[in-house]
């Protein structure tokens, strides 16, 4: 089956991001396809490369990156939700005249059309809040 995930949970304030990661790994273990992970609402914080969790905490950003590198999963961060929350890539940093940025590949910024595409073209879209 083709799954997509919608992550609304804030990575270090709520459990939803951990649940989504575990769900994603189990999907892949079972041979399902993971079509896209879409980060929206507070979930966009997951994309920040500046997160420095403690050593005994899961680094959600790194774990998603690793999973995406191994299985070429689309990690899409909603651009409108991300920009207001201070998540931007190099291009947006230039556009908004910021000296710094915090979003790198494989995370990417894109519009809500990518969530719609995931909802339409996956058999199942599961929300983690």
């Amino acid at each position, binding site marked *: 089956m083709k799954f997509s995930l*919608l992550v609304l949970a804030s990575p270090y304030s709520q459990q939803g991001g951990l649940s989504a990661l575990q769900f994603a790994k189990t999907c892949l273990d079972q041979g399902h396809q993971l079509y896209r992970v879409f980060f929206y609402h507070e979930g966009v914080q997951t994309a920040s490369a500046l997160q420095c969790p403690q050593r005994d905490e899961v680094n959600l950003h790194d774990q998603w990156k690793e999973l995406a590198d191994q299985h070429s999963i689309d990690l899409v961060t909603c651009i*409108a939700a991300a920009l207001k929350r201070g998540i931007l890539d190099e291009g947006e940093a230039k556009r908004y005249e910021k000296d710094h940025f915090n979003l790198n590949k494989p995370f990417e910024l894109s*519009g*809500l*059309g990518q969530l*719609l595409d995931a*909802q*339409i073209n996956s058999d199942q*879209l599961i*929300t983690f809040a």
Partner: protein
Amino acid sequence: MTNEILIIARSAPYGSSLAREGIDYILTSAAYDQDISILFLGDGVFQILKDQNPADIKLKSHLAALEILPLYDIEKLYAVKEDLLERGLDINQLGVKVTVIERSQVDSLIDSQDKVLSF
């Protein structure tokens, strides 16, 4: 391909941005020619109250966002009768045109749709 998509709006506006982010998703879906319905359920029924005046708290009007839905041909709006009643709201206090349905009808409304998502 056009899908029938139901958005369940469960969040009250202003305190959380979820209500607004749900509407943003609805407007995007409409722009891509999907057949959208919206179900206001639980605290989501507060989204459709008339006379919202959020300028004083420096937030954008949620009702104004809902009012442009007809321009996108989104006209299937439903609200749950019991959820309105529990909150002391009657149909005269609503700012957009909705079809009031009973809780017992929600199940089949959801089942009739191709896709469902809630905010």
